[in-house]
């Protein structure tokens, strides 16, 4: 990035470029913090495959489960991140993917899934093949009660679609069954890979892996809370650094 003018700082006489390098007058932007939501939200963080849960394995298990499966894991364990990775692969395989975000007030939104299903063209039962069936991602399925879950699955069975739903734990949805196709509990190695990739963008990282391990303990394995902890730590240290720089400039002037 070039500047055509060089301004002098009123107090130190330093050039603006030097002042900016001290971090005092740099405008805020999404690169200010490597752990901001724009970098760590599902879909933005790359899914790091484990030995048990590669994308290909998960889709193979979905096929074995006749197209109805569930990603099982606690809050912040990477279910939505895996859904994004599955979407990329399914799109490459020319499958139509539809996201359906379900809330706890599903009964008031039951018409929503109906209207969404109306958007999907009805298919002739004769020529339908598994390879051409649309895939619905039921994100937030865990928030629904038993009756709402059965209503959703009844709608899906009428529409002849494949399903990948998110659940906190395996659950019975009699008479239907959502087979668990991935049990998610990210390992420290997977988390470290993502952490280091995010931190690569910092010339002088303010947060190290030891800090991250402490944050992981505080967050009790919840990755969403883990990124929030690192974000806050980075902000605190950035402000502390600026305070020290301001003190030095005041001492010089």
């Amino acid at each position, binding site marked *: 990035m070039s500047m055509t003018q060089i301004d002098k700082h009123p107090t130190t006489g330093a050039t*603006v470029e030097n002042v900016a390098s001290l971090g005092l007058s740099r405008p805020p932007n999404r690169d200010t913090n490597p752990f901001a939501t724009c970098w760590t939200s599902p879909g933005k963080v790359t899914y790091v495959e484990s030995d048990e849960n590669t994308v290909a394995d998960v889709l193979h298990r979905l096929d074995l489960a006749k197209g109805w499966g569930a990603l099982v894991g606690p809050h912040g364990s990477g279910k939505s991140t895996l859904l994004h990775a599955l979407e990329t692969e399914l799109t490459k395989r020319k499958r139509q993917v539809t996201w359906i975000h379900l809330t706890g007030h599903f009964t008031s939104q039951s018409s929503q899934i109906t209207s969404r299903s109306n958007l999907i063209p009805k298919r002739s039962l004769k020529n339908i093949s598994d390879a051409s069936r649309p895939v619905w991602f039921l994100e937030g399925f865990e928030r629904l009660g038993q009756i709402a879950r059965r209503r959703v699955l009844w709608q899906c069975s009428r529409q002849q679609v494949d399903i990948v739903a998110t659940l906190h734990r395996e659950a019975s949805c009699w008479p239907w069954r959502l087979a668990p196709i991935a049990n998610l509990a990210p390992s420290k190695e997977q988390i470290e890979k993502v952490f280091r990739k995010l931190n690569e963008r910092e010339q002088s990282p303010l947060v190290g892996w030891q800090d991250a391990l402490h944050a992981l303990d505080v967050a009790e394995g919840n990755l969403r809370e883990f990124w929030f902890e690192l974000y806050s730590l980075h902000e605190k240290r950035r402000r502390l650094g600026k305070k020290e720089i301001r003190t030095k400039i005041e001492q010089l002037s």
Partner: protein
Amino acid sequence: MKEDRSSEEVELWLDRGSRRYLPGDVITGHCHFESWRAEGLQAIELTLLWYTAGQGEEDFCVHHFQRHEIDELDADSKDFQYEAILPASPYSYDGEIVKVCWTVRLKGFFKQGRPRVVEAPFWLTANEQPNEPAPRGGA
């Protein structure tokens, strides 16, 4: 569509190098995209916008937009100038939980590959002194 933000070879300039602007100021600059042109540039967009960054969902608002198809530009054109009047708000804000970020964004679309983006952030403030990050608990 994911964007490639590693376009160091393209230059996006703000004429006031201090990057601090007041409401009502005219922001001017120019961009140089010769290397993009050589790589099959199809269209180029210049946007002046603010967006939020931090711990929540991102919000944004476009204040100024211009798009040029490659056919509209002269065959040997490698740069163009831009100019816009800045609004009264929102001010740039470097908060702990949320930041309000003003930027000029240059986005190139190519025959093949992802769009590429270069940004030049700047301050929109109530005064010309460098804005300090908001202390914990708010401004």
